């Protein structure tokens, strides 16, 4: 065990810090869930790409830097410490990119990865259907083979980024009459293909960002299928594993929240003391623990280890931490909590953050599902 950074790692930290200081927009961007904000965030992805900071963990051949997970954590720490924006490209970086690298053909890698890395093509995910949320194997949207194309008909929902993104990926039932996780294929599709209708879903905060996607005999080339026909479930499980796993939520983001919470507490301390203090201390402790744990898991993976059901422990921890931190901030803000802007005109990011945090225990496998996984797979309780 060695908890010190090498001189190379320290130098790398300085490099990231300097670049971020020079490039992070001085004013917060408009929310990613609105069209104007989305375009601001895409522009930021392209700025990141210009400095080759878009996909730091990807191999250099695909537009990345080939960094290891410890370097990734350092990058993330400096990224969030600089107050840099949310990543519009999250679906690409952590979900689809690694999936194509693992399961794609050379042609698919050549075609899709570079534009993703450069922020030129933005990706939406399309897993869920109205009757397949937590129970993803209940997917019914079908893709019927028709020569060198599939014809897709059906509906996807809760498709993040799909209101504005360029391409989408998801699971479709390619074998007629197949049940549950059999007969599914993993397909990529241009969101502007004829027959696709996007219906933005208005979220809690009033902005879209999610969308429903309606498919009416949409023609998608067979060349856009990742891995074999019928092998979609395994591919998606690997992708979902990335999602639940280490890289979905970097600890730096929560440490930044905890630090903001400390600042908020100090500002209001006279009024708040003593009732909120312990919750603020718990926020710092939780964010630190999550950071340490991520460093520990990263160390294990770098050494060739794997994470399996432990990812469920992670998912529960960060999602409940995030909600608790924002709930605490809402309590501290009192009568200001409901306002979208403070009296100095600044955005009430705590309110937005609280709303966003409520999705944490729901998405990427609800925390109820995660607790089942922990109980059955890690602890060995009977099904």
């Amino acid at each position, binding site marked *: 065990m060695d908890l010190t950074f090498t001189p190379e790692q320290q130098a790398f930290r300085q490099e990231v810090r300097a670049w971020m200081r020079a490039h992070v927009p001085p004013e917060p961007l408009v929310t990613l869930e609105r069209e104007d904000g989305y375009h601001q965030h895409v522009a930021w992805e392209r700025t990141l790409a210009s400095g080759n900071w878009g996909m730091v963990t990807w191999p250099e051949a695909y537009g990345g830097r080939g960094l290891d997970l410890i370097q990734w954590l350092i990058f993330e720490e400096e990224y969030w410490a600089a107050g840099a924006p949310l990543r519009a490209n999250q679906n690409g970086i952590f979900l689809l990119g690694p999936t194509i690298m693992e399961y794609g053909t050379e042609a698919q890698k050549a075609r899709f990865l570079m534009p993703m890395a450069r922020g030129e093509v933005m990706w939406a995910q399309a897993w869920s259907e109205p009757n397949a949320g937590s129970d993803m194997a209940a997917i019914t949207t079908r893709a019927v083979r028709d020569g060198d194309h599939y014809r897709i008909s059906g509906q996807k929902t809760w498709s993040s980024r799909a209101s504005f993104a360029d391409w989408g990926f998801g699971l479709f039932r390619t074998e007629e009459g197949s049940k549950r996780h059999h007969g599914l294929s993993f397909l990529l599709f241009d969101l502007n293909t004829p027959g696709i209708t996007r219906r933005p879903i208005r979220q809690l905060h009033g902005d879209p960002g999610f969308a429903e996607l309606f498919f009416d005999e949409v023609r998608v080339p067979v060349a856009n299928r990742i891995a074999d026909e019928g092998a979609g479930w395994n591919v998606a499980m690997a992708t979902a594993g990335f999602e639940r796993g280490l890289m979905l939520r970097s600890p730096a983001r929560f440490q930044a929240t905890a630090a903001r919470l400390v600042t908020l507490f100090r500002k209001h301390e006279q*009024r708040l003391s003593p009732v909120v203090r312990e919750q603020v201390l718990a926020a710092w402790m939780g964010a630190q623990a999550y950071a340490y744990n991520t460093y520990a898991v990263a160390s294990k993976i770098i050494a060739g280890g794997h994470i399996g059901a432990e990812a469920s422990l992670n998912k529960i921890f960060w999602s409940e931490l995030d909600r608790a931190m924002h709930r605490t901030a809402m309590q501290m803000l009192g009568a200001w909590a409901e306002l979208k802007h403070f009296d100095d005109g600044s955005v009430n990011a705590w309110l937005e953050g609280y709303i966003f945090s409520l999705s944490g225990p729901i998405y990427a496998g609800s925390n109820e599902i995660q607790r089942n996984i922990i109980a059955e797979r890690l602890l060995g309780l009977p099904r």
Partner: protein
Amino acid sequence: MDFRLTEDQAILVEGVRDFLAGVHGAERLRRLDMRDPPRSPELWAELTSMGLPCLLVPVAEGGLGLGLVEAVLIAQELGRAAVAEPIVDTALVAVPWLVARAVPAPYAAIVAGEARIAVAHPVNPWIADLDDATHVIARGSLLARHGDAGAAWESVDPLRRLFASGDIGEGDDLLLDLGALMAAAQLRGLADAMLAQAVAYAGQRQQFGQPIGAFQAVKHHLASVAVAIEFARPVLLRAADAVQHGSRSASIHVSHAKLAAGDAAIQAAETAIQIHGAMGYTYEVDLHFWMKRAWALAGAWGDRALHLGRINAAILRGTLSTGPSHTFV
């Protein structure tokens, strides 16, 4: 000692509940949400015709002369229906304050639904529904409203109308107690409505071949919410009774009610959205109207810090007796 509602109270509550279920369902909320501002003269007229503005107005002034117990029961129903019209501030906060302080007031106009009273208190940085008010309570007086209310502040709750309060001087403790008490009552109504929505959704939404309400985890989340809501009820009634009778410890019981109902509402909201899954995160279902009102009212009329601070001062500083012989001190 009889902690039951009277028959009259029970009938009143049922009547208001049925009335609101008829005129103020989720469809109405959606329609109001489309308007700018999200207010409806027709709805106000309906609430007036139901007699809500006159409930607490003295009989001699043409009202029903009801008390604060009735007021919290009605406020609960207004919360359950997520009513955002300024009926609570006018009829359930302003009127009992005017009566208690013997301030001359335009009761006839209130009863007729023509007067609307906005309520300013330094505990809130905003005044709700100031633009539309004919009067405002501020600095211990009832003032005719004049001038421009300014632009509305944007609340997370699309049906709330908040305006800068400006310099409104010191706060009046009774006004704070009344505002907090009615916020608490609405919060409990909101909580109960969110529980009902979550139960209904859980009974209908199928996953893994069964309604999700058949999963024990879902059951237990909802049962915990039911416990919190149940035990906020007598706290609320007891607080209303204490304020009504001018009990020396009334403020403590109001704070207790605000905390119990506010915490129940936040727990109900977080549980209900979890059970609705991604659906609860959208405008596709109605839950969001109730959640947002709960977030707003949880911080309004004194936040957790303020109310815990008041209880702290009484309990830990020893100004209120505690222990088994002091249940109703």
